[in-house]
């Protein structure tokens, strides 16, 4: 299954606003999106659920692995990687 592992670099991690941006972006795609923190692949959460993403409690310096499955999975992963890594959730 296509996936990417990315580092969370912004100051307060995956708090309310970035989590909201993530979920809104993921929701644009038909593929299913799941993420887990660090190496805890037994605790995957739905990447389109704000509650789920918040529950990860991913702070600065933690890594998240995004798994996408579906016809637009590559597009989804590209967009999400852009959001997390390049744009850093627009928090600079």
């Amino acid at each position, binding site marked *: 299954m296509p996936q990417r592992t990315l580092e969370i670099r912004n100051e307060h991690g995956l708090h309310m606003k970035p989590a909201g941006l993530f979920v809104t972006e993921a929701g644009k795609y038909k593929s299913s999106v799941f993420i887990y923190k660090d190496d805890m692949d037994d605790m995957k959460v739905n990447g*389109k*659920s704000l509650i789920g993403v918040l529950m990860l*409690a991913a702070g600065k310096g933690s890594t998240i692995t995004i798994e996408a499955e579906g016809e637009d999975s590559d597009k989804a992963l590209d967009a999400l990687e852009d959001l997390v890594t390049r744009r850093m959730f627009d928090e600079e």
Partner: protein
Amino acid sequence: MLLEGIPASPGIQIGTALLFLPEELDVQNYTIDESDVDKELGKFELARNKTREELQKIHGIIETELSNAYAGIFSAHLILLEDPMFSGEVRKEIRLSKSNAAFAVKNVAEGLVEQFSSIDNEYFRGRDADILDVARRLVNNLLGKEKVDLSNLKKEVIVIAHDLSPSDTALMDKEKVIGFATESGSRTSHTAIMARALEIPAVVGLSKITSRVKTGDLIIIDANRGRVLVNPEGDVYEEYLIEQSKFLEFEHSLITLRDLPAMTLDGTSIELACNLEVPEELASVSKYGAQGIGLFRTEYIFIRKKNEAPSEDEQYESYKEAVEKVAPNEVIIRTLDLGGDKFASYLGLPEDVGSMMGLRAIRLCLRYPILFIPQLRAILRASAHGKVRIMFPMVSRVEELRQAKLLLDQAKRELTHEGIPFDPDIKVGTMIEVPSAALTADIIAKESDFFSIGTNDLIQYTLAVHRVNEGIAHLYEPLNPAILRLIKHVADVAHEAGIWVGVCGEMASDPLVVPLLLGMGFDELSMSPISIPEVKKVIRSLTIVEAKKIMNNALSFSTAHEVESYVYSEAMERFPDVLMWIDHRS
């Protein structure tokens, strides 16, 4: 149904109840039939739509009026509303467990809160509050409960609540609330003070009233006797209409006292001033014949600004308004008395356990000059527009007064350097409300231009009674011998030091206490404006000789009850009509 409580603000009012329960997720646990599942899902969807509209509207308003960060909370709530782990789970529960929609929402929300509670990180763990907030909106929309927010009411109501916080009342629509009835509180709790400030009848300490009244019930508040009647019979209703008009007549007659001096029968005058909680009360100052503002509380400005402290200019405008309105009379401005039950969450201060004795008032200000200096500057600037005195709350030792005066001097130097005018001779006084200050009043008197006794807190600290604790509120006794001795001591010390001394606690407006305060020789009594005519009547019914005698006799008793009985009998001989509207509190 008749409920008995404690009178908090006088008057009689008849109206419709509004049950104000901001914290409740009050749903019933019942299941629905298989055939109704689709209907229930439909109900949920409707409620979701309504909630979505509400959130969008609030988001829009806040984005334009306040800050983006604050608006962000509501856009997050909008996302939560669509969340599969929330709405998806609710739908599942309706389908599979046949729960009614409101119950399903509550269940799912509480389940999520449970999961959040095990998250280590405090910030993330705290997001459960957002889930509950959205759940609360959904439940309100499902149950057709009016979204209760006292700031936008459509018609006149009598608010029924467990309690009303300073934030609730600061943002309230004052045109539409015509009375309060609460479960907790005492005559000096914040709810009571606010009700008197707004001149609306209020009864507090009404056991379990929130489970016995619903929105829309017909309510009669007889705040003179401390009673609330719910859906009364026709004849009782008629009787109360008559009583209401009689009481309004009595109040009106008191207003004619406005222009008469507060002087005893043998010519001793005492100043009657008023305590102000919010600027809306300014009109009452002249209406009731107050000779100035003896206590101008400044907390409302801080409470009304949700996300940051008010600026120096904002404060200056507000203080200036009061000063100009009351001129040529004087305003005594008390610096920030924040903390305890007036806590404003935005400062991000640590949770202050036992906060009545915590980091509050002058201590908070001395610790955070960044808060204090702008306020001092604002007060000084206002002093250029009329007679102003400044007063520091909760001083517990002379060092605090000294430090505060140093900061005041700094503010003065800054303004002088900037060429901004202020009264260089502004009088600086101390609130005597902590027992240690009362006991070392002679030390503090040397460095203070005046005293004002804050009896509300002095009584709490001295008798070790928390006024909002329903279980022991009756132990709060203004006429307790300890209190009488303490305040007489402060009065004596002030007289000896040649400084002005007033009383600004609720005790000053109690007709049974006024003769004693008169006898102790206070220069001023400051109270809610509506109490002034009543107190003036008491003063005008006594000679100073009598007052001193009554005071001395009162000091000889061992219990508050004995003092009260004694003063009551003396009062009945001299001003029985004032007592007619008060229940003899034994």
